[in-house]
Each structure stands twice: as C-alpha cells, then as structure tokens.
C-alpha cells in the first residue's frame, strides 16, 4: 500500500501520534472482534473501494470476547491509514434507542474532524451532520442492519456535494450497535455537469450576436457592396471589431472555466497586494492615459498586506476591477485605489450615507482570521440599487449602457467573484447613482504560523 508507506516516510512523528490516538478507536470499533486490526482493515478497504456494502456482519467477529491486544503488532498501521484517508470516515454508536438525536460519533478520522469541526470525543452525530437523509441512512444501518447510499449538499459559500454510504459494523457481544459512515466529495463532478448546461445556454447566446453581424456584413460585401471600396473598408473595420469581441469572449469564458475547476483547491503562495496593485497600474498606464483618467494610489508599507494567493489570479482581480473603474470614469476623472490591513471578515462600513451597499460574496466565518482590504472607487455614473445583486451574474450588463460602449464581455466581475471565492475572501460594493461606485475585496492575510498546516489540524485530542 503506497499510501501507508508515504505517510511513514514523510511524517514519521505524526503517524506514531496517530496510532496512539487511534488506540481508543481500536477499543471502540474492533472491541471484541478477534483479529484486532482486521476490522480496521475492513474499514479502510471499505473507505477506499466501497466494497463492503451489503457484507453481512461476520459471526466469528461477534463470538469472541477476547480483549484487544493493545498496539497492533501487525506491520500494517491500519489505524493510521484510516486516519489519513482523504474521504471523511466516521463510526457512529446507537446510544439510547429511539432517540435519533442521541447518536454519537465514537470515531472520526482527520478529514471528518476538519470538515465538521468535531472537537471532542463522543460528539453527537447531529452536531456534525444534520441532513435528514444521512441521518436516516445511519439509522437504517444501526437498527435495520441495512447498508445504503445517498447524496447530499453541504450548503454554505462553498457549495459541496457529497455522497454518503452507511453500513453496519459488526459489534462486540453486548456492545451497542455501530455503523460506518463514509463520505465522498462529488462536487467537481456535479459542477462540471452544471457548467456544461450554463455554458451552452449563455455562451451560444452571446456568441450569436457578433456572429450574426459578421454574417450580415459578409453577405453585403458579396452582394450590393461588392464594388464599393469605401463601404468595404468601413465594413471590414466593423467585422474586425466583432471578431475581436468574439475572441475576447472566448478568452474570458475559458479563463472562467479554468478558475471554476480549481475553485475548491486552496491557492498556494503569497502575494503582496500593494505590489500587485502597483504592477497592474503600471501595466495599464497606456489604457488609462488614453482615456484621460488618473489613478490615485498610495501604497501602504511593504509586506503589510501580504495575502495567501495565486499571483496571476490576484493580478486578474485587480486588473478587472481597475479596468471597470476606468471604463466608467468620466474624462479627466480619478480612480482611487486603497489597500489596508489588517481588517475583519465583515464588509467595510459604507462611507457615503446615501449609497446602497451590498455584499456580493461573504467568506465562511472563521474565528480569528484577519484580512487585507482592497478598495477601488470611481466617480462615474454609479449603479442603481436594484442592479447590485446581479453584478456578478454572468453576461449581466447594467441597463442603459450605450451599445457602442459594450466592449466588455459581461464576465469580468464573475471572474473576480470566482477567484475571490477560491481565495476564501469576500466582495462588497457600494454605490450612489451619479456619485460613482466602490468595490471592496478582502482576502485572508498570510501569517507565519498558519494553522492550515495539516499536521496542526490532525493533532489528536
């Protein structure tokens, strides 16, 4: 088993600790079953291959009341294997019969403890999972001895989809019935399905407009305007603009789908937000000058706003937001960019008392987390209050935009939202009509002693 070897080679101290921690588990789970680690091995196999479903409890396991030999002398550290599995694995004890809320978790592996923030031994199952379907599956396994599968959604900002499998575990003589509950993440699969449907609906519609105009001009050029040099020149210019628009649209769609595929993978690396803003402002100078807009930017001290993140994606967020602000600024206008840290996880207070504010994305609440705040303000026409909730919708454009101005793809803010969600940050907007708009993005600060280190989370209680 390569998994176990990996664990032993890379993290020897951790594995020793886990075997220690898993001793009570061995007592609880394998209790009176005869070859101590065999049951755990079965659990591991079940978790890995889901092959256990439907397997009746072995009579031999029930018969033997031999107390378990303390640490398994078997060369395979099964407890550590179950502990280290990526899929959440839990063992549930029936507790008082007839009280569905009384089920307790006698074991939860590292993945399950992190996912459901289980802090103590013997926590109630209901405090970890309250989805009625899963509760029913566990009940069927505990009382009816039937194994079963089901799917459920976890909800929250990171909308995860899980399949759950519950199956009865052979309990020791006289011991309470046990059930094994294994979850498996199906988010990517489900997301891919939904993305395909969305893509087809929206993209085909958006691509059809420039395509229709291209076809129209081609027909005209082949027919009535065949010998008109002036018209030809003019039409070819329009056709080029339309073709470029299609290319931009496809670029944005592809980058959006790339970001979405990684949305549930936490970004690696650190980015100084202030330096990133300076870089983007420098790169955009020609565009900004061309529109006669200036940027008001006073960077904070170096390193004060270092966030955890993927540099390219953070740059894309800043670029899209500054781009938008410049686009909606009047000639000789100013775009103000501010970076401050540390900030809390709630949206910043609204500065203009007449402005409407809305949180477009809020990170899941994590106590003690500090954030860096990026605010980008323009002083253009602003946004109507009822446009705010729809801003991050794909292909949404604010009504009343002149058709000539529609150089954007309608995907910029959707891209920003997905990137910030991946970085576990938040976005809010405030705007008063006629007085401009401010977009705020907050991202978790990088710290030296991050507790996202898996070894820190896994620490046994």
């Amino acid at each position: 088993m390569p998994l176990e070897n990996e664990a032993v080679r890379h993290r020897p101290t951790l594995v020793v600790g886990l075997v220690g921690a898993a001793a009570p588990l061995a007592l609880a789970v394998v209790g009176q079953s005869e070859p101590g680690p065999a049951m755990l091995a079965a659990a591991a196999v079940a978790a890995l291959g889901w092959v256990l479903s439907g397997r009746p409890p072995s009579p031999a396991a029930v018969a033997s009341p031999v107390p378990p030999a303390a640490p398994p002398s078997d060369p395979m550290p099964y407890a550590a294997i179950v502990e280290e599995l990526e899929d959440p694995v839990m063992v549930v004890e029936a507790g008082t019969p007839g009280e569905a809320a009384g089920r307790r978790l006698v074991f939860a592996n590292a993945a399950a403890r992190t996912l459901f923030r289980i802090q103590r031994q013997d926590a109630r199952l209901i405090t970890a999972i309250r989805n009625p379907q899963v509760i029913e599956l566990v009940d069927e396994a505990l009382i009816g001895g039937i194994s079963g599968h089901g799917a459920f959604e976890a909800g929250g900002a990171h909308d995860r989809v899980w399949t759950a499998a519950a199956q009865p575990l052979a309990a020791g003589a006289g011991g309470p019935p046990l059930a094994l509950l294994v979850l498996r993440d199906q988010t990517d699969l489900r997301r891919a399905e939904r993305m395909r449907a969305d893509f087809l609906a929206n993209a085909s519609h958006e691509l059809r407009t420039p395509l229709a105009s291209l076809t129209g001009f081609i027909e005209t050029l082949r027919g009535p305007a065949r010998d008109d040099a002036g018209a030809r020149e003019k039409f070819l210019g329009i056709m080029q603009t339309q073709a470029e628009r299609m290319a931009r649209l496809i670029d944005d769609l592809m980058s959006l789908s790339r970001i979405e595929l990684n949305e549930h993978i936490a970004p690696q690396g650190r980015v100084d937000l202030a330096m990133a803003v300076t870089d983007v402002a420098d790169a955009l100078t020609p565009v900004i000058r061309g529109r006669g807009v200036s940027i008001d930017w006073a960077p904070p001290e170096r390193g004060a706003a270092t966030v955890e993140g993927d540099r390219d994606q953070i740059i894309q967020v800043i670029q899209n937001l500054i781009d938008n602000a410049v686009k909606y600024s009047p000639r000789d206008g100013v775009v103000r960019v501010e970076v401050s840290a540390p900030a809390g996880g709630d949206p910043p207070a609204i500065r203009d008392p007449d402005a409407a504010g809305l949180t477009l994305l809020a990170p899941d609440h994590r106590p003690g987390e500090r954030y860096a705040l990026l605010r980008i303000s323009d002083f253009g026409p602003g946004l109507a209050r009822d446009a705010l909730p729809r801003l991050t919708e794909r292909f949404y454009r604010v009504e009343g935009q002149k058709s000539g101005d529609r150089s954007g793809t309608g995907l910029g803010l959707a891209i920003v939202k997905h990137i910030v969600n991946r970085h576990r940050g938040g976005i809010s907007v405030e705007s008063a009509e006629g007085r401009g708009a401010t977009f705020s993005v907050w991202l978790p600060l990088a710290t030296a002693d991050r507790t996202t280190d898996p070894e820190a989370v896994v620490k046994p209680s």
Partner: protein
Amino acid sequence: MNEHIVRSYEEELNQLAAEVVRMGGLAEAQVNDSIQAFAKRDVPLAQAMIGRDGKLDAMEADIERAAIRMIALRQPMANDLRRTMSAMKIAMNLERCGDLAKNIGKRTLILAEAEPAGPVTRSIERMGRLVASRLKEVIDAYTASEVDRAVSVWARDTEVDEHYESLFRELLTYMMGDPRTITAGAHLLFVAKNLERIGDHATNIAEIVHFEITGQEILSERPKLDTLTP
C-alpha cells in the same frame, strides 16, 4: 459550561438542543428541496417535499412538549431556562420555514404547467440559495453556540431584502412586457416573498441564539430596507 449535579439534567438539555438541530436539518432540507424543485421544475421532488412537511410539525410538537415537561419538572433557571425557551422558540421558527417551503413547493406544481419564465427563475434561485445559506449559517451558530456567527447572520439581513427588491422590479417588468405572464408572475412574486420571509426567520433565530448565550437582546434596531417605497 458548568456541570449540573444531576447528570441527567444536563443530558436532557443537550438532548433537547440536539433535537432542535435535527429539526433544523430537516427544515434546511425542505427549503433546499423546494428551491431545487422550483429551479428545475421538478414535479416529483416538489410533491415529495410537500409530503414531508407533516414531519416538521410533529417534531415541533415533540420539542414543545419536551420543553414544557422540562420547565414543569426541573424548573430551570437563568441559563438553563434560556436554553429551554430558545429550543422552543427556534422550533417554532423552523416550523414556519417549513410551511413557507411547502408553499413554494405548491406554487412550483402550478408553475410547472406554464411556460418556463427564463432569467427570472434564475434570479429567484440565486436568492433562494442565499436564504438557504443564511439558514444553514444560523443553525451552525446554534449547534456550536457561536454568538458572533449568529450576529453576522443578523447583521446581513438587508442582503436578502436587496435581492427581493431587485426581483420585485424584474418581475414587474416581466409582467408588463406580456400580460399573459401575469398569472405565472404573481406566483413567482409569492415564491420570492416566501424566500424573503424564510430569511426573516433565520434572522429571528439569530436573535434567539444571541439571547440564549448572552442573556441580552441584540441592541440597536435591525438594519431594514424599506421595500415598499416606489
């Protein structure tokens, strides 16, 4: 948490809270199912979720009975009294959420017979997901006894109102565009209103959780968007 001398008393309080969480799980599932059935025009799912509503009513009755029994037999004081009372009050709010979800299910059955409404449906679905996530957040806060999490749900109540306001205008435009859509539009308006009220119940629960843990009411008026101004 200070331990009680009579062990089973503490156990009973915990059991009561666990029952409320279980009911919360069911209410959440009902709300989620109603939104999904609505968005996907899934008639069998809508029928199934309507049929499950009775279970929530039964659970509310059970929790109320257990809480009254607790008050009668144990005469809880201070913190314990607040825990007992909040279990009862949260169960009441959850039961209302279930009723509103059931109503969405019923309207889904009617809407499934009409033409699909297009983009408005997606706006309502988005609002539904926001409301569902707030309900989840507040039940999480209750489960883990986290005051600041409850307060953050409470403070963000206007978000749902903003969505509702935006939807209201969108629906008016939709109905004005084609009078034949008025029947469907009226049902859609009620679906949005029901979601908005589920959001209000989530905010109520946040207030109850705050009171249960701190013994004080959340000060200051709740941020409220005036949705009736033209």
